[in-house]
């Protein structure tokens, strides 16, 4: 048994050291493409670290969003950066003022270290509190109970942040990701095989979130992964769906959340205080709609500009 513990500590030390090294390389690498690859590797090892800390929910989210989708978003951003004309690129290089983010990061790191150091060494935490009230939450997975019942407004605000990010990207007015001429048979087949399976996995993660690691954000990012794969293979949202239907889908998640918050405020007297008997159904409904909205929002972020800009561009070119 002692050898096993020793092996595990050795693995943990190696993992921690690899994380620090990858983080430093990702920040320090002059080649942006390499930096993104290092960042994705960092995300995957980070997910492994969360598994070692026995936090499988966070590990799932980190692997799906932190490593997978953020990597895809960064790659899409890099492709745009490389497509820029030289003087555009110059202004983009001058803009960030390298030292400002570093100073901000150092400030945050100092603050965080201070907070961690001032924590009481032996804290009971809220685990016991959550366990006692789990019965009235409507779900069996404590993480889902906290995210969607006890601290539901945190999740509500997270969804609003995601929507705001997309609005920010759209308000820049750029064109969406260019359509590749031909994806080639391999990518095409891969997308056709994986997209239905990914949708199935998203539904599974959504359902399993009630009693085991999983939930709306993980399911939503898997859904977004399916959309990203289809977008890379040249698929585009039908023009008829890019106006109202797309907007409605994006707003549906935060919308139903706000509706529930207002409804519970009026009926129960407290924000997002579900009646225990209906809590399970309400949470599942909320998560199902949220999954769809999160998936579509993340995919739209990957696409960049609003899908309608693509058609406008084409029309303008045809007119010229």
């Amino acid at each position, binding site marked *: 048994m002692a050898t096993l513990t020793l092996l595990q500590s050795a693995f943990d030390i190696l993992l921690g050291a690899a994380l620090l090294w990858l983080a430093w390389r990702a920040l320090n690498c002059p080649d942006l493409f390499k930096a993104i690859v290092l960042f994705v590797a960092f995300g995957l090892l980070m997910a492994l670290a969360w598994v070692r800390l026995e936090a499988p929910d966070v590990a799932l989210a980190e692997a799906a969003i932190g490593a997978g989708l953020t990597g895809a978003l960064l790659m899409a951003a890099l492709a745009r950066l490389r497509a820029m004309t030289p003087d555009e690129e110059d202004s983009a290089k001058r803009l960030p003022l390298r030292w400002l983010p570093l100073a901000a990061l150092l400030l945050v790191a100092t603050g965080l270290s201070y907070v961690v150091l001032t924590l009481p060494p032996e804290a009971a935490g809220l685990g016991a509190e959550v366990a006692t009230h789990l019965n009235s939450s409507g779900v069996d997975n404590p993480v889902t109970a906290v995210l969607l019942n006890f601290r539901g407004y945190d999740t509500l605000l997270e969804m609003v942040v995601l929507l705001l990010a997309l609005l920010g990207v759209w308000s820049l007015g750029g064109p969406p990701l260019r359509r590749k001429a031909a994806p*080639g048979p*391999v*990518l095409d*087949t*891969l997308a056709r*095989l*994986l997209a239905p*399976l990914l949708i199935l996995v998203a539904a599974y993660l959504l359902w399993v979130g009630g009693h085991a690691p999983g939930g709306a954000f993980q399911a939503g990012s898997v859904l977004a992964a399916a959309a990203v794969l289809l977008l890379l293979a040249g698929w585009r949202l039908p023009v008829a769906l890019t106006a109202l239907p797309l907007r409605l889908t994006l707003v549906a998640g935060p919308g139903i959340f706000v509706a529930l918050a207002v409804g519970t405020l009026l009926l129960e007297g407290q924000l997002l205080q579900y009646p225990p008997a209906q809590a399970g159904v309400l949470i599942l409904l909320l998560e199902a709609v949220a999954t769809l909205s999160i998936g579509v929002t993340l995919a739209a972020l990957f696409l960049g500009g609003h899908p309608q800009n693509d058609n406008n561009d084409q029309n303008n070119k045809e007119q010229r």
Partner: protein
Amino acid sequence: MTPTDYLAATLLVAGALFFLAGTVGLLRFPDVYTRLHALTKADNVGLGLMVTGLALQAESWAVVGKLLLIWWLVLLAGASVSYLIASGALRRGIRPWRR
């Protein structure tokens, strides 16, 4: 330990050896094409051995199914992605390594 445990352990160690060989190949091979060759061996065979070893220890058939699904997905993704990387490299004019 039962004979099944020994078999599972042997399969897991064999799988780990394939991963080790794949990693050495990734670090030591001369160009992108040969490195892809080394990596796919680790993913396809190494993971296959690991999945078989773990399936022998699995508690239910549902777990065995999930393990096989993971292997199948990695096979599919590994084969497709290494094709895409290799064809991308060829299009950019990276010549395959010659002695």
